[in-house]
């Protein structure tokens, strides 16, 4: 008992919950590190960034977060656009465009994460 739209929306919710967890962790590291002792020193220093990037758990987390956030954000933007009375044919075009953009951005961001994880950049 499903339609394409109901499947897309279900994933929107799931992605939202995933982001809540993963982005929450990200916030703890980036902005609440001093409070909760999660990070030593400046979280934005290259050495600190690299330390996390080398960690497999962080790499997986960031890739997941990237995918979930891209899906959630682009589906949300698609929803807003669909509610603005666009012509009939444009709906299909927008969906395809967003899928392409999402995949492209995901590949770019995932490459950035995984390349650093695997390589000896900055060592």
């Amino acid at each position, binding site marked *: *008992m*499903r339609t394409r739209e*109901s499947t897309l929306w279900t994933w929107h919710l799931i992605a939202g919950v995933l982001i809540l967890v993963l982005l929450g962790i990200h916030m703890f590291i980036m902005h609440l590190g001093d409070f909760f002792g999660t990070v030593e020193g400046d979280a934005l220093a290259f050495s600190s960034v690299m330390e996390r990037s080398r960690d497999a758990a962080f790499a997986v987390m960031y890739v997941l977060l990237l995918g979930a956030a891209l899906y959630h954000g682009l589906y949300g933007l698609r929803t807003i656009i*669909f509610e603005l009375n666009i012509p009939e044919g444009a709906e299909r075009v927008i969906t395809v465009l967003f899928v392409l953009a999402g995949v492209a951005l995901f590949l770019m961001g995932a490459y950035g994460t995984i390349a650093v994880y695997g390589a000896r950049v900055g060592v």
Partner: protein
Amino acid sequence: MIEPAGPKQGEKTDEIVKNVKFKVLRFDRDTTPSPRVDSFEVPVKKGTTVLDALHYIKENLDASLSWRFSCRMGVCGSCGMFINGFPRLACNTQVLELKADVIDLKPLPNFDTIKDLVPDLAVLFEKHRSVRPFTLRKDMAEVDKPSGEFFQSTEEMERYLQFTYCIKCGLCMAACPTVATDAKYLGPQSLTQAHRYNVDTRDEGRTERKDVALGPHGAFRCHFAGACSEACPKGVDPAFAIQLMKRDAFKGSLGLLRKRKASEVAPKLTSGKRMEGVPDAPERTV
């Protein structure tokens, strides 16, 4: 304990409490193609509704003023309009309860205006029809020529009873922010009726409704702004129906929606004796 708005025992009811200024948006495609606001002073008594005030204006001040009304008691859904920034039924709105000396009357937003305060509700009915708001069963022959009643328990009925009270007044559509921009969005009225039939155990039409009700301009373009439930004059709570429908859609997407058996025709009594003096039932007319 709600105090009734009308006069108390022995209270004089004919006294004019105050004069209220009504600012009405006028439009007529032939005589007033550019909308203008007309002001009218109306004497208001205790218990005067906006509908009464409109009658006063038409009878005494401007006979060209147009609006829809019928039952004057909040059951037909004809007199929906935008009163002081909120969609209401004119017959259900006591002027004194608005607690204002100036009352702004506009035609219902999100519908085309035919003339003055008359909205074009044709789109509402089209969207309503598109969700197939009637009992759909595999054996439609039983629905068209019933052999008996469908069995349904009180609990099963209470799952959808609230949503049957819709009077198709369109106030919810005027309140909804998505209807404000999206012309194809089904809107709270029709989505509530889709849900009303989906959970009615006599109906088996969930699959037939899903492409419309759960399509790109269906339930998922609702974002729970809740204005529809606020505006509804009959307590239908359309926002509730839509969220319940989304819950079912979520479960359906994950394959967790249990297919329920449609209610059966209640079995005819095979035993028992007619009591003394009880006459036969009249002949069937259907």
